[in-house]
């Protein structure tokens, strides 16, 4: 896993240095550059780190990074670790809510659709999933914004805190109110994937011999679901749930952009547009840690849910 993380950092570094976008031109602008003296330009080049060879820069960056010094963000003019700490705090609330909501609701819907295969509930759920998975998250966010923010005026249209308030005056309720719409959008989009896959698996289980036998013994549908189906469906659902961390992260980039919610996603976009290398690198690595960590937890959970894997592990 550490090896993979190092590789992620190298890949993202190479990608950043390959970029033909000149950070000076992107941030200072052609006109301003033209009117500057050579001395000023050199100073700026040193600030954006254009003048050193890539390998030297990477090694210097990696050395600091391992020590916990993530460098200075060029866009926010603050230490990267500080920027990330603030943004991650904002985002994490959003992402965790959406992650849990979409996982639980998606699982329940998927099980329901699988049990009632071909009947009305299944059709409704499947139709919902297909439409939602074809809908771009940012457009859904725009729609919700339009309905709740502009027409009904019940929820704020953007930002993570009310405008014009000092940081100390922001209550938890304010934060909650600002997070409702982004979290809702993320959950709605997250549900479809998990529900569709759970449904497929559930159909397999419901057609299996042991379910047929259980039905022959006179068990009701609910008993079958509880005793035979749930555990079997849970395993792939857990894989998906932890694999969806990456998806939720991507979704939050878009959703935060629409709601101007200051979180990791918005920071990533700012960093990408402004060629802010230290920040973008750090965000990539932090998110990769989340994704790999998620996979690791999923593997551990397998053993807890499925006794066969546990015993197989012991035998080795």
């Amino acid at each position, binding site marked *: 896993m550490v090896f993979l993380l190092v590789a992620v950092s190298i890949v993202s570094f190479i990608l950043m240095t390959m970029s033909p976008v000149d950070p000076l031109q992107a941030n200072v602008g052609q006109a301003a550059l033209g009117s500057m003296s050579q001395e000023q330009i050199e100073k700026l080049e040193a600030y954006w780190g254009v003048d050193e060879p890539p390998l030297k820069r990477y090694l210097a960056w990696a050395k600091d990074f391992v020590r916990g010094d993530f460098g200075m963000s060029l866009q926010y003019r603050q230490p990267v670790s500080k920027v990330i700490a603030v943004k991650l705090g904002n985002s994490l609330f959003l992402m965790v809510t959406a992650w849990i909501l979409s996982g639980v609701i998606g699982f329940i819907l998927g099980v329901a659709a699988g049990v009632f295969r071909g009947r009305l509930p299944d059709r409704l759920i499947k139709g919902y999933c297909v439409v939602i998975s*074809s809908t771009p998250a940012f457009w859904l966010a725009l729609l919700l914004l339009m309905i709740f923010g502009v027409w009904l005026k019940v929820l704020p249209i953007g930002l993570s805190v009310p405008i014009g308030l000092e940081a100390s005056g922001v209550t938890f309720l304010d934060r909650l109110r600002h997070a409702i719409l982004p979290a809702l959008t993320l959950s709605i989009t997250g549900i479809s994937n998990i529900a569709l896959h759970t449904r497929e698996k559930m159909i397999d289980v419901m057609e299996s011999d042991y379910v047929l036998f259980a039905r022959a013994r006179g068990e009701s549908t609910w008993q079958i679901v509880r005793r035979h189906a749930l555990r079997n469906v849970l395993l792939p659902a857990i894989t998906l749930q932890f694999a969806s961390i990456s998806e939720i992260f991507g979704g939050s980039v878009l959703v935060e952009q629409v709601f101007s919610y200051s979180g990791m996603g918005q920071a990533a976009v700012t960093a990408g547009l402004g060629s802010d290398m230290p920040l973008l690198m750090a965000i990539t690595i932090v998110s990769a840690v989340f994704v790999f960590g998620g996979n690791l937890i999923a593997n551990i959970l397998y053993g807890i849910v499925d006794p066969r894997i546990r015993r197989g592990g012991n035998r080795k």
Partner: protein
Amino acid sequence: MKQWNRRKATVLILVISILFLVTVAAAGSQCSDAARATDFSRKNLLPCLEYPFGTDWMGRDMFARTLKGLSLSILIGVLAAAISAVIALVLGICAATLGRRADGVITWVIDLIMGIPHMLLLILISVAAGRGLKGVIIGVAFTHWTSLARLIRAEVMQLKESPYVKIAGKLGKGKWYVAYRHILPHLLPQFAVGLVLMFPHAILHEASITFLGFGLTSEQPAIGIILSESMKYLVLGKWWLALFPGLALVVTVIMFYLLGENLRRLIDPNSAHE
């Protein structure tokens, strides 16, 4: 409906979705002038008969702009998905046939790419390629191949154990001969379906990345650009600017999805006779 069995219905849906997509793509490329024409005498019109999607703050016909944007998105999506699918096919076959070491390297690369959140990788690659149209295509093409490559690799692994491939090997045929003559034809159906089902993803991600501002300029009205522009006018109550282009995008993506699903139903031997 009695004469229509499921196979015929499937073919019908297939034809309708192909027709729809080709029409949109063709119509869009015809109206690039109309999409750019500004006319301040007709700005901010609500949707009406003459302008079905309304007009924007510069008097541009939103219907023409949406068509143009959609055709651009379809072209980019198809191109990027095709490149991506070819990468997946080549790497998938390589991983399964070139021996254990190549397999290890390729699966490792797949893990690596899947470890970086999709959007973030798209941002990184499109920055590396210098943003713009090229950046979008390269970005989408290089991020979508992983899951299809995994699928193809698993399939090839299975095919390698099948009797006829083993017999061909015993008869002294070369590795590449077997891969080309015996394994590839078996992969094609799955490859075709994987390719078509990749389109919706490619288009959605293309729209997302242009929405974030990494893609095209506002002279090229990609659907993401249209939506990100409309976002600024949303608060002023101009709901039609965002609603209709987005709806059109959703319909297009669903069409692609239907295309892929029905194609799969026809090709897949497990469901072809349902």
